[in-house]
């Protein structure tokens, strides 16, 4: 393969906004913004963009102006850079606290006033097995007027902890950002490091990683469908998909020794070996799973009381999806045909076409359809990948090495960006992980207003975002 074209453009702080605007006008899509500790006063600023497999890294020695009016998707990125690195952004008003939990409530919520408006605060401790997140709804009656999110209860400072570590250690930090997207996070990190070192994967390595990524997507999407059924109290669906998810996870355990596939991705190679008999056994298990998934999916399609709940709820408009930088199933449900897998020369996807529902409405029905329709496609892909036995493999040199590496990987929740800066002796100077969940949380907060409060669990589950990998 030929590695992605990488351009690093160093810009003066005063030219930052102009460069970003020019990049956007050139068709570059925003992928993430972060701060990096610099020797001088204040942190340096980085922003990543992508365009048809090309990568652009804008680097400024210091932060000065906001770009949030040009790229609304950068809102959380700037707030995080401010809270964690002290970067200031002129024009980002008010710059609400995001990671900083010491800020008093009025400093991170949007004031909502009027007759009969009241707040409903949910979390961070929930009644079910749900991660820590605080939701503050401003409602009139059952109607939500505004939603303020407060995440980062699981902020472990993983990025900072990875600094100064050898890449093999830093890989663990990136991977364990979350349990359910561990493979996507780990592949993104591995790709970023290999990108910086000028390594390219062999076809076998690409196949091994694609296999792991799709196994992860399979069990995640089965879990999502189960959760969506739970959100409307449809127990037969919940149980059917939970059972299928369990089977998918047992396949993971047979193949890699870990139900969540943890520890299965390495930097610069892969230890995954599948013999011909093991591959054929796995293929028949997958075929069985595919047939039963199809059956459960059909039953869900014909459950009128469930479908009734899906329509017209949690609608994400196409324009909003584009403007706010939605990714993954949520974006595709809105009709935005984006999928990092279509643009992944380091993985074995070949000619994957992003699945967009026939009637992209962005309502809860659409993300459900994106997942349901994606399941057989994913299993077919796995079947194809298992057509030949797999040997352990190593990445080979294919380009010049440099300090910065960028990678984009489609996790089950959307496009995940991993950026690394490698220092002397192969240690990690800076690691930044911007997961699909991170990109989509603000989109969720935008979608909820106007809906009924009791429909929130359903809308939330149609996004099914991860807290831990946004918090890091």
């Amino acid at each position: 393969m030929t590695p992605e074209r990488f351009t690093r453009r160093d810009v003066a702080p005063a030219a930052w906004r102009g460069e970003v605007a020019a990049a956007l006008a050139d068709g570059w899509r925003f992928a993430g913004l972060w701060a990096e500790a610099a020797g001088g006063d204040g942190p340096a600023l980085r922003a990543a963009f992508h365009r048809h497999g090309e990568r652009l890294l804008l680097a400024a020695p210091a932060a000065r102006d906001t770009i949030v009016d040009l790229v609304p998707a950068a809102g959380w990125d700037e707030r995080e850079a401010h809270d964690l690195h002290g970067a200031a952004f002129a024009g980002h008003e008010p710059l609400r606290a995001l990671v900083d939990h010491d800020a008093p409530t009025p400093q991170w919520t949007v004031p909502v006033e009027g007759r009969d408006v009241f707040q409903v605060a949910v979390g961070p401790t929930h009644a079910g097995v749900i991660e820590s997140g605080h939701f503050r709804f401003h409602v009139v009656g059952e109607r939500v007027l505004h939603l303020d999110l407060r995440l980062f209860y699981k902020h472990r400072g993983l990025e900072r902890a990875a600094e100064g570590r050898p890449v093999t250690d830093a890989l663990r930090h990136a991977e364990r950002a979350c349990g359910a997207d561990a493979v996507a996070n780990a592949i993104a990190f591995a790709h970023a490091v290999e990108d910086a070192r000028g390594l390219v994967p062999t076809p076998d390595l690409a196949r091994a990683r694609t296999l792991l990524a799709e196994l992860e997507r399979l069990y995640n999407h089965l879990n999502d469908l189960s959760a969506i059924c739970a959100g409307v109290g449809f127990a037969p669906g919940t149980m059917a998909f939970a059972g299928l998810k369990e089977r998918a996870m047992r396949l993971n355990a047979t193949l890699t020794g870990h139900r969540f596939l943890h520890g299965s991705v390495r930097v610069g190679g892969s230890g995954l070996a599948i013999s011909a008999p093991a591959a054929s056994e796995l293929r028949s298990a997958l075929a069985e799973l595919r047939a039963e998934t199809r059956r459960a999916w059909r039953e869900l399609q014909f459950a009128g009381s469930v479908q009734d709940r899906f329509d017209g709820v949690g609608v994400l408009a196409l324009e909003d999806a584009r403007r706010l930088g939605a990714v993954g199933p949520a974006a595709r449900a809105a009709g935005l045909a984006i999928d990092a897998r279509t643009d992944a020369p380091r993985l074995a996807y070949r000619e994957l076409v992003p699945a967009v529902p026939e009637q992209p409405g962005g309502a809860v029905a659409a993300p459900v359809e994106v997942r349901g329709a994606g399941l057989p496609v994913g299993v077919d892909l796995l079947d194809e990948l298992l057509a030949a036995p797999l040997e352990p493999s190593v990445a080979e040199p294919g380009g010049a090495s440099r300090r910065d590496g960028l990678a984009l990987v489609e996790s089950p929740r959307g496009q995940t960006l991993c950026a690394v800066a490698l220092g002397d002796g192969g240690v990690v100077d800076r690691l930044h992980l911007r997961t699909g969940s991170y990109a989509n949380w603000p989109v969720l907060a935008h979608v909820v207003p106007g809906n009924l409060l009791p429909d929130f669990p359903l809308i939330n589950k149609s996004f099914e975002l991860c807290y831990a990998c946004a918090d890091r």
Partner: protein
Amino acid sequence: MSATTVAAGALQVAGALVAPLAAGTVQTLKARLQGRPGPSPLQPYRELRRLWRKSGVRPVPSTLVYRLAPALVVAAVAVGLLIVPVAGRAPDWGVGHDALVLVGVLALGRFAIALAAWDTASGFALMGAARDLTFAVFAEAVLVLALLVAALPAGSTDLTAMSAAAAGTAVWDDPAHWCAAIAFALVAIAEAGRQPVDNPDTHLELTMVHEGPLLEYAGRELACLQWAAAARLWLLLVLAAELFGPKGGGFWAQAAILAGTVAVLCAGVALTETALAKMRVLRVPLFLGGGAALCLAGMGSWLAGAA
């Protein structure tokens, strides 16, 4: 007082003990239908025993209103159990057997719990209570209507008379009785807080109706409220069986038929809860409006038949 009346009174009181078993049976059947082994039908008794042994905690600030609510709810449902006859008979407990009194007693329980929710000032409790009261506007009206239509053959709202008049097959010749039966089934689901109106098994605070006001309660107070919820379901099941179920034979035969009918109704509840997702909250009034329309149609048909 005849021996059968005493026996009927004993059965009414026994309802208080058997009620959790009915709720547990629905839970077990639901689990089986979903492909899970599920808990034993006796699980609600274990829950009650566990809660009864626990010390209680109360939110601060809360007042007498919050403390009295569980007792009031229990008292209301207990009186309700005494109002509903068993196998067409019931001793005179001094509260009569009027269907409208029963509606009032159920409303009293609802009112007490809504006041308690207000007293805690907890967002979830208040939200649940507000939804419950909103539904009640429709549910209580439809319940009264359904009972009135069911009372047409007897010409009285006395439940013993209604039960007696509903015996035999002749009463089903009039469409009014069918309308009353279906409308009662719809409104009973809402009254008992079962799916598709409410989901008694949910942990999602934002979607709760009947469970919301219970969130703050603990220990014995919670045990009382859980028992009351089970007894409310039991009461509605017995009432449905009395007014619309099959009858025949002597007292003991009829009591046996009643038990069978309640068991069948439990299975019916489990089936609908499995087959149907919970409906959108704002659709519940529409759902109950269907019941009201049926009642009005039933009344119209009765008047047309009488004219």
